[in-house]
């Protein structure tokens, strides 16, 4: 069984993380930029990576940049935005073939690093502004991206729950920003923000694959240099006091109702109780042996999916299910009863053991993919903790029934959100 061994190096303005492994046919580079979520910058931040990946100074059109990627044996370039707690994280990922498996043995990794540096540090600018046409079309696409959340009702309902439940907290902001703010962005203002982000953000580079540490370090040193910084922390907010449970019904033209329920866990990644919370979520709704799946789906036949997941850095536990609207009351009461059962310690040794086995399996499977390794390791950057994978597995495995009941006591129901159809069915 292989557990990750990560080499971390302090570079100019960023940290370099190398994970050496021979399991892949490709090498993966991931560049992460992290800053606190705030309303003034969220939309600029949502636009920035898409403008950067669309072209650069040396490859001034999408067709030119993408042709170069094709030439590098179809290297992929992806950008992604995510929220981890109240941080807004931009990721750039390049995956490039390991030439060992090609007939043509020309080294490719260095070209990948150079390209990543080109995208991040050599954008298509003139006179302190990004290329205006690029910004214009990416603004259009960003609006489309914001708008399209409405069309995927599962995503829409999840996003509405967070919006309602975290009203007034930065976490309520959307990763893709705000529709109304898009039009105000100019090629100049975006460029100003770009400089600010490179100066202030916490930066991390991950390199995963069959690589030589010295070569990677030298290449990174040569191509990526930034000023040193002290990354911003979050301002400590008082935890929300839940006075009463919010119940929100929204009517739309849908056939299936989407029921999303949010709890506050009051525990985050890195807290001692976090491992027990993981096991709790597994018993409650994380898997197909969990209480929600068994009781909402298998016993009551109310839903195709009924599950829960954690937002580890914000401290939320969210339930999601798709049900017929006439079954709303019944579904809500089953979901609440099952939470009560967990709080009362009403679960047996088998549920506990099988949840641990599946959790362990899940994390070991996650690190079978390069992107999975990066995501697992990055939790430590976000939380400023250093939980190794061994420790994660060992502490999770040591969780007792008492630990779970104790952490369950901290969990509070916050908001019930229901997206429901127009006509009340008889």
């Amino acid at each position: 069984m292989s557990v990750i061994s990560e080499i971390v190096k302090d570079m100019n303005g960023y940290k370099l993380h190398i994970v050496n492994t021979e399991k892949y046919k490709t090498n993966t580079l991931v560049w992460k930029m992290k800053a606190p979520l705030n309303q003034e910058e969220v939309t600029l931040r949502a636009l920035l990576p898409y403008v950067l990946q669309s072209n650069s100074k040396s490859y001034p059109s999408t067709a030119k940049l993408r042709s170069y990627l094709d030439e590098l044996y179809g290297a992929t370039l992806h950008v992604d935005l995510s929220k981890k707690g109240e941080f807004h994280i931009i990721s750039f990922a390049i995956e490039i073939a390991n030439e060992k498996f090609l007939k043509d043995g020309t080294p490719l990794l260095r070209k990948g690093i150079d390209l990543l540096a080109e995208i991040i540090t050599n954008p298509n600018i003139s006179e302190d502004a990004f290329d205006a046409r690029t910004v214009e079309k990416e603004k259009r696409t960003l609006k489309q991206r914001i708008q399209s959340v409405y069309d995927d009702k599962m995503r829409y309902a999840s996003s509405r729950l967070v919006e309602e439940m975290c009203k007034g907290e930065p976490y309520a902001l959307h990763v893709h920003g705000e529709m109304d703010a898009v039009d105000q962005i100019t090629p100049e203002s975006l460029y100003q923000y770009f400089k600010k982000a490179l100066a202030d953000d916490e930066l991390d580079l991950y390199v995963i694959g069959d690589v030589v540490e010295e070569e990677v370090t030298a290449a990174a040193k040569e191509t990526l240099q930034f000023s040193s910084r002290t990354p911003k922390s979050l301002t400590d907010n008082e935890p929300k006091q839940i006075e009463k449970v919010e119940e929100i019904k929204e009517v739309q033209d849908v056939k299936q109702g989407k029921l999303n329920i949010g709890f506050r866990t009051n525990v985050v990644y890195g807290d001692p109780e976090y491992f027990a919370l993981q096991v709790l979520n597994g018993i409650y709704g994380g898997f197909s042996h969990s209480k929600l799946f068994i009781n909402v789906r298998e016993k009551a036949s109310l839903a195709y999916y009924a599950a829960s997941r954690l937002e580890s850095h914000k401290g939320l536990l969210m339930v999601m299910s798709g049900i017929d609207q006439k079954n709303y009351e019944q579904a809500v009461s089953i979901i609440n009863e099952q939470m009560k059962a967990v709080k009362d310690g009403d679960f047996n040794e088998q549920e506990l053991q099988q949840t641990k086995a599946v959790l362990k399996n899940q994390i070991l499977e996650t690190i079978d993919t390069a992107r999975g390794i990066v995501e697992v390791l990055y939790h430590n950057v976000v939380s400023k903790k250093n939980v190794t994978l061994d420790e994660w597995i060992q502490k999770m495995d040591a969780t007792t029934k008492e630990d779970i009941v104790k952490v369950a006591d901290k969990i509070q129901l916050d908001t019930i959100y229901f997206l429901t159809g127009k006509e009340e069915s008889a």
Partner: protein
Amino acid sequence: MEKIPFEQLQEELYYEKLSNGLDVFILPKKGFNKTFATFTTKYGSIDNHFVPPGKNEPVKVPDGIAHFLEHKLFEKEDGDVFQQFSRQGASANAFTSFTRTAYLFSSTSDVERNLETLMDFVQEPYFTEKTVEKEKGIIGQEITMYDDNPDWRLYFGLIENLYQNHPVKIDIAGTIDSISHITKDMLYECYHTFYHPSNMLLFIVGPVDVEQIMNQVKENQARKSFEKQSEIKRIFEPEIAESNEKMKVLEMNVHSSKCLIGIKALHVDQNGEEMLKNELTTNVLLDLLFGKSSDNYEYLYNEGLIDDTFSYDYTQEQGFGFAMIGGDTSDPDRLVEVIKKMLLDVKTSNPITEQSLEGAKRKKIGAFLRAINSPEFIANQFTRYAFNGMNLFDVVPTLEKISLSDVQKLSNEFISEDRFSVCQVVPKGK
């Protein structure tokens, strides 16, 4: 046991056909934590008209029954198989496609026990009237979920347009009405027709001891008796060559319009090498025409006609096949007009050069390397290829052989307006 090495990729595949007809493949993957196994029958949503073994008359079964059967195999007299897998630290799942039903698990420990569970639960059906009735509520919600999903409606809307008779046009899960007619006896009849080992393939990929796993599979199979089965008689109505309907517009509760342009495939009687080459050449052609490095893509994006949901794909199976191009769009009608023109222009303007073809082939080769990082991809795709007489590991050598004249010949034949069709989803009341 046969050993098949792939030197360039540094992989070795092991194969044996067991005496009951089951094909078993094992691909050892060092360094991985996870073992992934799929147990797949060549039976999907299109197999709805057939002659059951030992009978003379063909039967027609309700739409969605293959998928229903997939759900019901997980339930046993002593409970749910999901529970057993999770006690053994595994994550299990299944899926039904047009042509296959696959059962799978992945686990990082207890692989032998999980493999035993996989083989046993698939080969020991337990259907009762009561559990069949209960499942109707669950699958009913699955169907309703897809009904609200505009991308799914768009995709199936286009297939319905393309085909007149072929059952590929039927939604894999069926309808609430069609599944209401399913009985336990029908499930058994389908099961006994399509779940014979000679119609199935077991694929195991992961950090395993090949000999030991192969012996385990043989012992497991030797404990079970199967009557010899003759070839399955599937019945398909004749299908027209051209697309059945040219255009469909669905109004839905969405904010963005969506549009797909489809081309109905030719040569859907192919298999083996010929099919592999045809499929790859078509994919290369689509890459050249609509890939992110193409002029067409840049034009469409700059004009605001597409965004990052734009994609294209070509699927070919025995009896049906189609290419699909599109995504979210601000102007679905104009997108149709422009893409049609781009397609038809290929035949007159010869925009594809040796150099661009080389780039497209390189891109595909890199994509293949990336894909085989994934045990799931290997097992699922290998099975699909094998059911069509193709070998997944022939992809790179076959790609290397594609010439400019192959692409030109294909585009001349494949791109033809009488086989085009369009499906759009637009905001209701707009």
